[in-house]
């Protein structure tokens, strides 16, 4: 046994670990995914919004062809006509929240920070943060529904499954951008299931399932992906504050020139 001072031995161990990590990073074959210290795939980093694989555009709306048929009365709950009242027709113009998933579908960067206990997912769009426990705990009963719902994650092998409930009735996506006459809404019965799997160093496969039994006969899914943008780490997410200078809310401009 060599007589090495304890702190020197500890330092040597650290160096060995660091060298091993560096060697691992350098020799990592294409397709190998980064893993956290607990062995789980590490989703941390900067990502663009979930969208169709290969698409350059945003996935701000769901593809109608992917949706399940309506239950009787479901269509009337899904497509909500505008009323002419801007507070109803365009609540975001008054800085009301977009809700989930809408806020995370637009063309803004998303930062994820993963620990063994939580996945933190923040979009630059209005700085909305989801703090998602990863212990698969049961959803709360009898709580007030919210715009962003109650997401709870669990690992199924290398796939992170996030199931969310307790949503307030609100817009499902950004369809009203395309059709100013009506919204696509979900009900308070909405359950969303996200399945995130890091398929390579730069890609997350992102399957999104909508289960709203008051509107659709069965759950339906879309297959999206998210692409990594390491360069966004240089500046981080920018601040976006809706109420700072929201001059034309609801089409009525404040004239403070």
């Amino acid at each position, binding site marked *: 046994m060599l007589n090495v001072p304890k702190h020197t031995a500890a330092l040597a161990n650290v160096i060995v670990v660091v060298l091993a990590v560096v060697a691992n990073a350098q020799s990592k074959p294409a397709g190998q995914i980064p893993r956290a210290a607990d062995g789980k795939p590490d989703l941390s980093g900067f990502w663009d919004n979930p969208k169709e694989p290969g698409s*350059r*555009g945003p996935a701000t709306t769901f593809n109608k062809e992917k949706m399940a048929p309506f239950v009787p009365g479901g269509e009337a709950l899904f497509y909500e006509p505008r009323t002419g009242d801007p507070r109803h027709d365009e609540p975001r*113009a008054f800085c009301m929240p977009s809700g989930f998933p809408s806020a995370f579908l637009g063309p803004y960067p998303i930062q994820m920070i993963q620990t063994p206990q939580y996945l933190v997912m923040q979009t630059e769009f209005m700085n909305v943060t989801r703090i998602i426990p990863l212990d698969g705990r049961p959803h709360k009963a009898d709580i007030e529904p919210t715009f962003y719902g109650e997401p709870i994650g669990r690992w199924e092998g290398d796939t992170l499954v996030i199931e969310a409930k307790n949503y307030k009735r609100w817009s499902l996506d950004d369809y009203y951008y395309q059709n100013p006459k009506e919204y696509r809404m979900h009900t308070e019965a909405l359950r969303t299931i996200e399945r995130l799997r890091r398929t390579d160093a730069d890609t997350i496969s992102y399957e999104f399932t909508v289960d709203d039994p008051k509107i659709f006969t069965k759950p339906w899914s879309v297959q999206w992906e998210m692409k990594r943008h390491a360069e966004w780490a240089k500046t981080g997410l920018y601040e976006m504050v809706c109420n700072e200078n929201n001059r034309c809310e609801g089409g009525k401009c404040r004239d403070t020139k």
Partner: protein
Amino acid sequence: MRIRLLAMTLGLLAGTAPFLLAHHSFSAEYDSNQPVKVTGVVTKVEWQNPHIWFFVDVKDAQGKVTNWGFSGGPPGVLQRRGITRSALKTGDTVIVEGFRARDGSNNASGGKVTFADGRSVFTASNEDTAPR
């Protein structure tokens, strides 16, 4: 030159996909049937969220001056594209193209800004350049 390259890049982006960078529906606040194109001098720049605003004094044939307000993209989005607040300064002469506010006031989306020397900068979200 840097600005011109940026403008070209943004133009390509605008041509390929309907980027929706506003926090609201374009049609709720602006009227795509009322295009606006003015030439004037920048009097004020508000480089703030959720959209930058800038104001332009426009002189008509009789010499009467009207101050117009134009909205652009969010500062963070513009900054990520390399467009900072120094791109637009008080006293600059600009040509602005956009769409008038629904309330009929002298406010509009400012889809495209061109400087006197021909440099062109998109300040608005792409939906402002291609409304539906």
